[in-house]
């Protein structure tokens, strides 16, 4: 079971993406736990994650989050995929990163 944590400014728009990602993951039989939080909750919620995905609007926080969650892979989500809430695309991207 992989743990994927999505972070954005307030955890609102990423929580929309979580839904489409969960559907896509179920279809692909990819076992993972996906959740969304504001970046300010990174330490509390994402320290034990396998992958942290940042909304493109907070990608400037990439280095900060990397520092806060050492050992966790941090990537930002492709802008178009994010905007179009392309859960399948993001799950495939996650899969390519953490298997």
């Amino acid at each position: 079971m992989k743990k994927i944590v999505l972070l954005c400014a307030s955890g609102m728009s990423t929580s929309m993406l979580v839904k489409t990602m969960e559907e896509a993951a179920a279809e692909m039989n990819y076992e993972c736990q996906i959740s969304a939080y504001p970046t300010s909750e990174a330490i509390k919620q994402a320290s034990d994650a396998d992958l942290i995905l940042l909304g493109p609007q907070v990608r400037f926080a990439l280095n900060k989050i990397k520092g806060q969650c050492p050992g966790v892979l941090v990537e930002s989500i492709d802008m178009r995929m994010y905007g179009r809430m392309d859960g399948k695309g993001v799950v495939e991207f996650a899969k390519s990163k953490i298997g």
Partner: protein
Amino acid sequence: MGKQELFDKFLDYMVRFAEIKAVAALKDGFILTLPLTLAGSVFLLIANLPIGGYSDFMAAQFGAGWAAPLNQVAGSTFGILAILCVLGICYKYCQAEGCDAITASLLALASFLIVTKGSVLTKAGEVVNDVIPKGWVGGNGVITAIIVSLLVAWIFCYCEKNHIGIKMPAGVPDGVAKAFAALVPGMIVFAGSAVVFFLCQALGGLTFPELVFQVLQTPLQNLTDNLVAGIIIAGIQSVLFWAGIHGPNIVGGVVGPILTANAIDNQHLLDAGMSLLGNPQAKIITIQVNDVFIKSGGCGITLGLLISAFIAARSAQMKSISKLAFVPGLFNINEPIIFGLPIVFNPYFIVPFIGVPVIAMIMTYVAIAIGFMSPFSAVQVPWTTPTVIAGFLLAGWQGAVVQLAIVLMATVVYFPFMKIQDNIYFKEELDAVEGKGIETRNAEHS
């Protein structure tokens, strides 16, 4: 230097600014106060519904003191905003540094109270000692709270990282060791606070929050409370989001505490029995103007773009993205349209995306300045409250009318730009269909 380079430099600067530890802690810490001020708003709203004759009606039903319990809630949420800031900002700073955040926050709270007045003056001129004055731990103490919390957090983290403190031998329980570890930084910040208290008393005959309020907070509040500042605040947020960076997150973190203090100032006028409508003493640019009136459908007032797309879009891309973005847009979440259309770095949308919120700011400012709409009290609504409803809750029917006018304006301004983009997509789609047609025809021939 080219325009592109200049813009890149600006972005780079803003991002670096947002990454400064103190700025990030200020932003994240201030967000922690939101649940309290929003919940407090509900009670304040019930005490002051923007309906004529409401107060008299309630007094007739429940007696003259009907609002007292409601105001008690407001007084213990907005009324202690500075205390909440001290705890939240210090906590977030130390948490990000990996230090003992809760201990540091408690030290910061004590330090804040050390430098704050411990007495109040009654109207009769009598001094009452041994109190925590709500007048200084609320909106008026916000800037002091920021200064104290950041300083204490910095000192605390410095001590912890450099192992300045009393070290316990191995085997001593963790909790005990922690308590002793906090002893030295505690002594340092308390001594520092006591010295600050003494110096302010001895040299100026006042306390540190009073000094900060006079020389820093009041000028800052006045600086934000005019149309030019409003336009700059609205404009920068849009420019940043156009570049794909969460503008409200960066700008709001810094101006949020000041604009909230502006709103609480207005509440003080109301509490003193004055009316806000057309009152030149009331502040116009408050937190609600930034959070609600220039963000219908999200930053950039993209609700206007969605509506114009519903009216006249022909391309499948424009139609599908505006459909997808509509429901979140009603709740002022607009990442789908910003990144999906995309608006980010799209030259066709830079003008309306920045222009519409700026015009909305001007409309809101004028509506208040000419006395059509009341300036805002401390009541806030969550930023996800749908437009028009939010306006009604904050400022009665006049607020709803102003928001409706803003959405109409946004629709009209976005319309031609939406059409340009729509025509491009439409042509692309036609070309794609024709291209495919030619391919299949060729396949048939061979």
